[in-house]
């Protein structure tokens, strides 16, 4: 099955019906393994047990940017290739991305209080992620504000691509500015600075959360396709009602004019 085949919403629905149970099962298995490894990971010599927050904070922080990246590719699909499912993919991803970003901010704040002595600091990394969260909310509001999905899709695609400028700012904020946040320790030039006892559970949790996103995204896309079918059938129903009432009015007027004559 090619990408062109998936452009057909009916084929996408058939694929999602086949794939979703497997994706959900793989997500549950990996999350269970990841949570077990997180629970049994040793305490850090400086941070103690609070290092366990890292196993949910970091995957959510990665996904907050990854989901916007997925939405940016989908936006290109909408604006350049006019792929029929591109705006469906972008719209379905926004609430999921917003949730991951919210969790990254919340768990980061809960990790920061015992380690930095504060829940929040207006430094570059935290502020740029907060802006990302607000952009997700703005995008969701835009989708709701414009009734016609195809018009909303083009406006949302432009906003998404403009917002993508924030992704490198978030990634490199810890290098470009002085910040409380630690520099990159996993995705960096050279080897990771994390010990294997932390790195393995972190990677398992990252893959598990990514699978969770793929599963939820596919399910949300399926729902969005069904929502659009509902909308088009409702419009068809409304136009039939309008047509029949017009015909009814027309025939009454015709009868009335015949009666007068």
């Amino acid at each position: 099955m090619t990408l062109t085949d998936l452009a057909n919403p009916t084929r996408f629905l058939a694929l999602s019906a086949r794939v979703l149970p497997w994706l959900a099962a793989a997500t549950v298995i990996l999350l269970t393994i990841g949570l077990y490894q997180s629970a049994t990971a040793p305490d850090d010599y400086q941070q103690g047990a609070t290092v366990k927050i890292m196993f949910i904070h970091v995957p959510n922080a990665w996904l907050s940017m990854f989901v916007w990246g997925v939405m940016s590719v989908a936006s290109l699909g909408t604006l350049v290739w006019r792929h029929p499912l591109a705006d469906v993919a972008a719209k379905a991803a926004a609430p999921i991305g917003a949730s991951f970003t919210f969790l990254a901010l919340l768990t980061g704040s809960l990790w920061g209080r015992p380690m930095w002595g504060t829940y929040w600091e207006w430094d570059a990394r935290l502020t740029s992620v907060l802006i990302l969260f607000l952009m997700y909310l703005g995008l969701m509001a835009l989708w709701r504000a414009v009734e016609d999905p195809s018009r909303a899709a083009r406006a949302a695609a432009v906003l998404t691509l403009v917002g993508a400028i924030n992704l490198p700012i978030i990634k490199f904020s810890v290098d470009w500015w002085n910040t409380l946040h630690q520099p990159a320790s996993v995705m960096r030039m050279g080897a990771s600075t994390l010990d294997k006892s932390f790195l393995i559970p972190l990677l398992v949790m990252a893959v598990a959360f990514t699978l969770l996103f793929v599963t939820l995204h596919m399910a949300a896309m399926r729902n969005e396709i069904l929502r659009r079918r509902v909308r088009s059938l409702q419009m068809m129903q409304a136009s039939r009602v309008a047509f029949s009432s017009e015909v009814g009015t027309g025939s009454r007027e015709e009868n009335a004019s015949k009666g007068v004559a």
Partner: protein
Amino acid sequence: MMLSLGPYASFIVTSYAAAAIVVAILIGWVIIDYRSQRERLRELERSGVTRRSGRSAVDTP
């Protein structure tokens, strides 16, 4: 096996609980939305509105 989370246990437990709640809300939203859309499509089909192709809007091939 009892987990020893030290003096900051409340921060760790709150983080994991928040993640569990948000993920549960996402899963619930997806499931409820799916059922709601299917029900709306069934109602429309019952009222005689069908797709131009004539195929059911609810069932996937």
